[in-house]
């Protein structure tokens, strides 16, 4: 008996609240189960950060710019502050630079674990989801001890950082590294070497080197396509020029390679943390120019006593000179770019924020074309796309 196969064409709405889409709608045009075209409807969490940025003082913007990617808030914070520092022309003391790298790497591990967990649940591996969120907690607690906040840390301020490292945090970090190294082996066994995961990710959403460059992919997605580009190496910021680490690069460009890059970056981050703990120099954690503004009583009680910066009120409304600055950092998901234009008032004239997931919109749209419908979630998860970060 012959079975007649009738080609079925149609459109399908995925999301806006769907396990495979998050806060975004994907309008998929299907032919059978092959995706012919996909239209992304982003913007369900649009917070208008750029517009609000024109109505807030520079300091008041710090908690706002980290909001789009709460699980990567140190990087969001650092990129913005670096742009403001360029306009203000402030030099940051050495110890503060090391502390910035420290916080950023702890955050990178936490963010990658989140990404792996989400990828796990997308392709039906709920153990990865629970492990990812459980292991992330270890790193979040370090950040909590260091910055005083769990997710939106607002740790980095123009000229330095808000709090100093304590021996107990160093102890916590050492323990966390030992724990994570052990746990990464388990991760490898249960997740990376899992035949189901390999089947769902290998040769799925393949992006060649040329495509990655043309579409402007960033971060682990770019490096999984064979482009050796990391801002920590290309244009070192914080303490990265003094730290020794490697950039994992893969040629395959498929979902599995993207996962492997993120997985290996965690080990590199831990290497960086170990070096920072060993080499961190003594010294102030805020630029002299701002330290002088702190009244003597506060200086004695908070800064010298507890290693915390309690700023005077007028610090919040400083007026930078006219000018513009472009700063970028390597956030967990890739290149994060800030462009700040100042007209001499206490508020930015224009704040431009280009996040890694924003740049992944076009990549995702192109990767979906020609994929199978069931692979959309795998592509989505492997790109580590975070909707609030994309629409800001």
């Amino acid at each position: 008996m012959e079975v007649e196969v009738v080609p079925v064409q149609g459109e399908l709405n995925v999301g806006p609240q769907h396990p495979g889409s998050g806060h975004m709608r994907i309008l998929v045009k299907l032919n059978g189960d092959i995706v012919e075209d996909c239209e992304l409807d982003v913007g369900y969490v649009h917070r208008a950060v750029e517009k609000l940025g024109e109505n807030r003082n520079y300091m008041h913007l710090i908690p706002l710019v980290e909001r789009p990617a709460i699980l990567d808030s140190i990087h969001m914070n650092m990129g913005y502050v670096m742009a403001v520092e360029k306009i203000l022309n402030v030099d940051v003391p050495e110890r503060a630079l090391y502390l910035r790298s420290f916080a950023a790497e702890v955050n990178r591990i936490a963010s990658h674990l989140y990404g792996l967990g989400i990828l796990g649940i997308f392709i039906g591996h709920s153990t990865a989801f629970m492990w990812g969120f459980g292991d992330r907690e270890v790193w979040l607690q370090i950040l909590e001890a260091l910055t005083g906040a769990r997710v939106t840390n607002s740790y980095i301020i123009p000229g330095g950082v808000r709090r100093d490292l304590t021996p107990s945090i160093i102890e916590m970090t050492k323990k966390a590294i030992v724990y994570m190294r052990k746990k990464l082996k388990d991760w490898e066994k249960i997740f990376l070497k899992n035949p189901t995961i390999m089947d769902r990710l290998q040769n799925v959403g393949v992006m060649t080197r040329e495509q990655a460059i043309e579409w402007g992919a960033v971060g682990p997605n770019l490096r999984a396509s064979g482009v050796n580009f990391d801002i920590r190496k290309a244009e070192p910021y914080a303490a990265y020029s003094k730290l020794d680490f490697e950039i994992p690069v893969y040629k395959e460009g498929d979902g599995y390679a993207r996962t492997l890059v993120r997985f290996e970056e965690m080990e590199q981050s831990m290497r960086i943390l170990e070096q920072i703990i060993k080499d961190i120099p003594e010294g102030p954690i805020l630029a002299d120019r701002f330290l002088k503004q702190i009244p003597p009583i506060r200086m004695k009680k908070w800064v010298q006593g507890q290693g915390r910066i309690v700023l005077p009120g007028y610090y919040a409304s400083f007026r930078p000179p006219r000018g513009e600055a472009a700063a970028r950092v390597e956030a967990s998901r890739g290149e994060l770019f800030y462009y700040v234009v100042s007209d001499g008032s206490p508020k930015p004239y224009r704040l431009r924020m280009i996040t890694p997931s924003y740049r992944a919109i076009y990549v995702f749209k192109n990767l979906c074309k020609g994929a199978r419908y069931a692979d959309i979630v795998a592509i989505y998860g492997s790109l580590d796309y975070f909707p609030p970060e994309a629409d800001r």
Partner: protein
Amino acid sequence: MSQTTVQKPIDKIISELKAKGVIAKAESENRGSLEVTKDKITEIAKIMKEIGFDHVIAVTGIDFPEQQKIQVVYHVSSYSVEDLQKIIFAIKTYVDYKDPSLPSLTQIWGSAWTGERETYEMLGVRFEGHPQLSRLFLPEDFEGVYPLRKDFKIKLEGLFVDKPG
């Protein structure tokens, strides 16, 4: 001419551009910028791509209501040329309120796709030749014209909110 000193990558680009009749300036070791009129922007983009700038990081629109102008800034950088990786170059151009249109650079740099679309919906700059110029971030029932123009005011609460009555 003999050059004994090692040229910095940014200076090299600027002299390369100068040879092609484009005036650009270096702002620091890793940042450069140039200003063009809108009829020349495609030409400049092609030259920049030849030099090795292969992707657009950001497309930014800045509103200047006093001059009735919008500035559009393309930040470009490179992945494939190692010397250019650390450099970000800004290509700046102005459009008038009366005719806010620019040729789209998506044919040259595919990565300008998202940025141009956003600049269109937020500031009303039309990019001629963009394959899909429509709203991306704003809700479908959004009212008001272009949110990132300066005449679009948002309601702000004061530090102290008066209680009614």
